């Protein structure tokens, strides 16, 4: 899970030569990664073909999509998926995929709404803190972010009148943006 763990060789003057600093940064990385990896896993599942994907494919996609920056200990994926399933965000069923019986995961209707909110919140948060970290973040134009709660609303979906998360009437905002 930690980038620092993947550093195999380092100079004796390097900060990570100190076990204390190594532990500190590893813990910090872990804290940052925890929420982000859940969000990325939800993103991968919601984008999957037919909306269904098995655990192993989730990890493969995660590695590829994040250029191997976000790598989690593979065994820890399944407790995370189970937790999301327990919370009603994901659902699973056994299906034959590539000639093998596998457990495939898909996002529930409620989970999709929660994912939209979380990705909207994370997007707006990253945009807001980007000047502090000297990075450039530009949110995509075909989404409207609810001014009340930062929920991500797809402008291509014509029927949406109220924000799914906080219930704010967003029709006027939508029309102005479209």
């Amino acid at each position: 899970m930690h980038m620092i763990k993947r550093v195999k060789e380092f100079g004796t003057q390097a900060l990570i030569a100190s076990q204390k600093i190594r532990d500190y940064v590893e813990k910090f990385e872990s804290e940052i990664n925890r929420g982000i990896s859940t969000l990325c896993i939800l993103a991968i599942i919601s984008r999957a073909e037919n909306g269904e994907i098995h655990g192993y494919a989730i990890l493969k996609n995660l590695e590829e999509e994040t250029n191997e920056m976000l790598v989690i200990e593979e065994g820890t994926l399944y407790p995370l998926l189970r937790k999301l399933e327990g919370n009603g965000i994901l659902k699973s069923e056994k299906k034959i995929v590539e000639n093998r019986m596998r457990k495939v995961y898909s996002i529930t209707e409620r989970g999709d709404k929660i994912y939209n909110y979380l990705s909207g919140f994370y997007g707006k948060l990253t945009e807001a803190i980007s000047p502090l970290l000297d990075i450039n973040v530009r949110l995509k134009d075909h989404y409207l972010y609810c001014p009340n709660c930062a929920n991500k609303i797809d402008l291509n979906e014509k029927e949406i009148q109220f924000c799914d998360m906080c219930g704010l009437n967003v029709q006027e905002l939508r029309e102005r943006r479209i």
Partner: protein
Amino acid sequence: MSQKNMNKMVKDYLKNIKEKLPEWLKEKKDELKDVLTELEEHIWDKAEELSDIETPTESSIRLALAHMGTPESIAREYKRRGTPKVYITEELWPLYTTVLGILSAVVVIIYVIFMIINIATGSFQLDFLGILLGLAGVFTIVTLIFVGLSMEGYLPEDFKTEEERKREEKELSITERKGWPISPNTGKPLKPFVNPTGMIAGGIVQMVFGLIFIIQPSTGFIHLIEPEFLALLRIFGVIVISEGCLDLIRGVIGNQQVTKHQIIISIKILLSLMTISLLVVLMERPELVPFVPFEKHLISWFFAFVILIVILGAISNTYKAITLEKYRDINF
């Protein structure tokens, strides 16, 4: 390396994980099997991908297992459930306080029963050490158990049976249909805490009964009853009328103004405790009770039992008044 040895490597790894998994998961046999099967499939997939010859080899399995992480880290993820709150998770906290409350009440009740027996047998001695030790023991044991359960990642639903879960789902759908609120603290549906019509009707009935106790309509046998007993009945009538009035007021207020309901329940508790003094008089002087063909000591025991019921009622009302807090800021 033979297939048998590769299988053994994977099985040993899974066995190691199984041993370290939390107890709540081990108890759910189907779920446990599902968890281990999914992990095993992943290992073979990974080993196949990492192998140069497109079928798993000893080294690719070893690499796949390294990618999986240690059995401890996987088991730790399954234990990472619940939000920490002073060593006991937030999710287990309501169950912890409920269990603590019930067991403390049991200790108090046992103490009261012994006290009543002592009073009845004339060997009463005030001794608070026993009850204090009992409560301290309950607190220590329950707290230690819940800290342990929190560390293992237990959640309240792990203690529920399949039927209970289905019943809760049904209750939730009724709540949604009727538009009742959901508690922000527990996430459980909140039913109205007062049935206004029932409360008003009950209050009126109580007031009528109270009035009969006070007026004591003249009957042919009233002269056979001890005047002291009739006086006690009148006092009891005043208490019953007061309780009826309070229920009537609660019914009129309805499912709002939690503080007023709590104040009224507190007054009702005081009134019910007042009846204990009347019952003690009757327990001490059973000869006052008319038309009862039993031995006097049996009448005393009967009133001791009624006192116990009144005390239990007072405890239950105290609990009700406290739990009304969850209805604050909730609109029905």
